[in-house]
């Protein structure tokens, strides 16, 4: 390589390989200007206030202010939409002082009652390395009773899924707990054996697999495993109240009203004659007009519209 060619390369090497790293060439200190700055500022302000409102207890004399602020900002909807709903009551107001477990037992068609070993009492392997969420879920079933029915329903379904489609009869729960000795007692014995503590037991409400909602393995899952379908009416569903359900309900109400109006009209006709009938019908509006003919169309066309308006207003 000639000396002339080497010199520019050497300069380039100095700049690229030895000079201090370059800074962002833009010397603009602020990220935004004008309308963009205003828009970002408003968003930051909104998020900050919504966050503070959401995480501050709405209690005492601040309750009304907190509620009004939340309403004005629609803070709850915003926190849900951004998945920012939060509560930080960890070990608060006190850590638990009892170890709680929910024993889950199933009563089979043969009348046998089996412990499904869902609780961790005396069953955890130590050292406890891999996080076991089932332990937390098991404890949560006691703390928040609303989970017990869906959990029992799952036990029924799962049993059916793993036993040829045959559901058990019932799921029984027993709350079990041990009390952590207070420090002065533990210090007297220099600690304690957690499995030697007295185990308290309290039977909780059980759930029948035939009558508990969703406790029956539904036919689409039965089909996956080649099980025979459930008999008609055996699956206990839940009321969902979707837009379609509301539209159907509205259609039924309309139908009943029209039937009542029609009956009233006939009675009026018989009693007062055609002149009176003409003066009462317009007051009911167009909805009454042609009601008998509209009925089949409601689910597809008119029903959709009616349901839409109804749903949007809810």
């Amino acid at each position: 390589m000639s000396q002339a060619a080497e010199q520019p390369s050497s300069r380039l090497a100095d700049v690229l390989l030895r000079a201090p790293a370059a800074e962002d060439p833009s010397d603009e200190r602020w990220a935004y200007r004008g309308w963009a700055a205003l828009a970002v500022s408003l968003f930051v302000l909104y998020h900050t206030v919504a966050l503070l409102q959401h995480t501050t207890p709405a209690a005492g004399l601040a309750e009304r202010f907190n509620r009004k602020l939340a309403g004005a900002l629609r803070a709850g909807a915003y926190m849900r939409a951004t998945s920012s709903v939060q509560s930080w009551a960890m070990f608060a107001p006190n850590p638990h002082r009892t170890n709680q477990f929910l024993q889950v037992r199933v009563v089979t068609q043969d009348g046998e009652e089996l412990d499904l070993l869902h609780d961790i009492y005396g069953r955890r392997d130590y050292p406890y390395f891999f996080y076991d969420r089932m332990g937390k879920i098991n404890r949560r079933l006691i703390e928040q009773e609303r989970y017990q029915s869906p959990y029992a329903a799952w036990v029924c379904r799962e049993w059916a899924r793993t036993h040829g489609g045959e559901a058990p009869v019932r799921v029984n729960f027993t709350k079990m707990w041990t009390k952590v000795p207070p420090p002065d007692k533990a210090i007297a014995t220099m600690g304690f054996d957690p499995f030697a503590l007295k185990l308290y037991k309290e039977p909780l409400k059980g759930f029948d697999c035939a009558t508990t909602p969703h406790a029956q393995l539904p036919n689409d899952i039965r089909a996956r495993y080649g099980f025979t379908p459930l008999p008609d009416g055996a699956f206990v569903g839940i009321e969902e109240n979707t837009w379609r359900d509301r539209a159907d309900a509205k259609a039924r109400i309309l139908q009943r009203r029209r039937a009542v109006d029609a009956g009233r009209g006939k009675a009026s006709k018989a009693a007062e004659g055609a002149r009176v009938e003409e003066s009462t019908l317009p007051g009911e509006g167009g909805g009454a007009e042609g009601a008998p003919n509209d009925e089949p169309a409601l689910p597809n066309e008119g029903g959709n519209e009616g349901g839409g308006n109804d749903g949007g207003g809810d």
Partner: protein
Amino acid sequence: MLAALLAPAKAPAVDLSAHMSLATGALWLGFGCALAFFLVRPELWRRLWLERVDPRPAGLFRIVFGVVVLWTLLDLIPLLRFLFTDEGLWLPAMARKNYGGELRRLWDPEHGFEHWWSVVPALWAKFSLFHVRADPAFVWAVFGLTCASVTAMILGVKTRLSTLLSWFLVNTFYSYSPVFYSGGDTVLRVFLFLGLLTRWGEAYSLDAWWRRKRELLGGSVVVPALRKIPAWPLRLMMLQLAIIYCATGALKSGFTWFDGTALYYALSLDHFYRHPVQIQIATFLQMIGFLPLSTWITKAWETLFPLALVGVALRRFEREVSAGTWPKVQAWRRLLSYALIAAVVGVLAYVGGLTAWYYYSPGEAPVPITREQAQALVVAGVLAFPALLLGAYLWLRARRPRAHAWVLRWLCGKRLWLGLGVVMHLVIDVAMNVGTFVQVMLAVYIPWLSASELDAVWRTLMSRPLAEGEGNRPKHKPGWKASLLRPLDRLRYRGPREPYVVHHAADEASIRRVALLRMWDLGARLRFETDSTVSAGALVVVAPDDRTRQAGAEAGRALVPILPGFWWLYPWCLAPGLRTLAGRVVLRTFDLR
């Protein structure tokens, strides 16, 4: 709003109606004053939120946080069928009814959405794809897609898009039902949304690498710089962390946090301890007073954590004042802003005083004072505390510069508040199994770091401990004291390691390719030398501990320990067959041979 914290969490029902309207009006006034403060002092608002900052802390946060998200997802694999499929805990209809938000009204299993635009309000509320379909094949497919998008986010591939997709898909799992939530999951959800707002792909990402590589190989005359990013999402992350700690500290209002037994109970719970033998250790630590002290420190540290934010602001103020860049404003604006702050404190004092009047029970109190006296005490306290704090700070600043510096560096410093947090979370992780809570909490400390602090971290990682007597490291007389101090000194007194020398050809293309290495050399361990014996596009590396000239794949492999972006290849280098492959991967990245 903070006044609400003064009201006891589980207070007896008290009729507050006589003062409710007044208190509400006062709080609105305080809220208005707080907003007006920033209208009067917009330059402070700009400094607080609208600055551009170095993207490296955000980039590192993306990687570490993303790994924790992926880890948390992978942890869910054993429970995927149970938690999310229609063969698990919930049939979709039940999950939809209980947790489906607007979807339960807007979507029908047979007829679909009510209108085409119903998708928008359904998405706006809590939304999970599994509320619509939850057969195992679908759930596994979504899980695979989620892991793939989080991986893309970690690597920084199409970062904005992969972050958006990750946020949506991760929330598909979290929105299905809350039955499995732990504290760590909540932190993860909240920060993933803030990550969505952050331009965290501008550093330590393949997106940034590809851009800079294109520019450098395309003729740039400098190593292309990283682009600065808006600071506000990172500041929101700092605020969020302060809220988490302050809220959890304030809510720890039970007697165990005051009598010092809370940690003893927490460490003795079957659901958390790693091994039952720990109970004996916890009992011993309780007996010697270590756990009671730790309990009180934990509560105080959590509740007062916002002081770390105050510290960040104060240090910034002092730095700018010394540099002469702090904005000068008209006296009327300054005085008005002080008056607005005073009004906010006044409102808090008023509402706090009323709260004391209503909730104070003279019969149950340790000190025999009347309600009116309690009210006066609270009002005086809320008014005097900030005034005393401010006065003390100004006095230290004017009269005691060393104490003032100590307050800034330690009392309000990151090393105290974040350092204590790191220790606390590491102890939690050793003693208790709380899933990925510890990992996610440590990850969210990263946005608190500045670029220079991050640089110092890389430099320390790549440095070596100085020998005793070398440089400024003191030489201690042999003995127990020296033994105790040695590990600390090794951390404290460090010097640069010998550089790795990269020999390259003199042609422009080779120089440009070799210059790409600088973008990965975070600890500044490379030195470059033009070498006429090296062919164009090739590379020869001389490592400090091995003076032989490494060429080809061996040269690439030799660079792995000093380029953090390739540390993931390190295990490969230990396997004989994969060693060469790892070296080639490094060289291919820079289009070198």
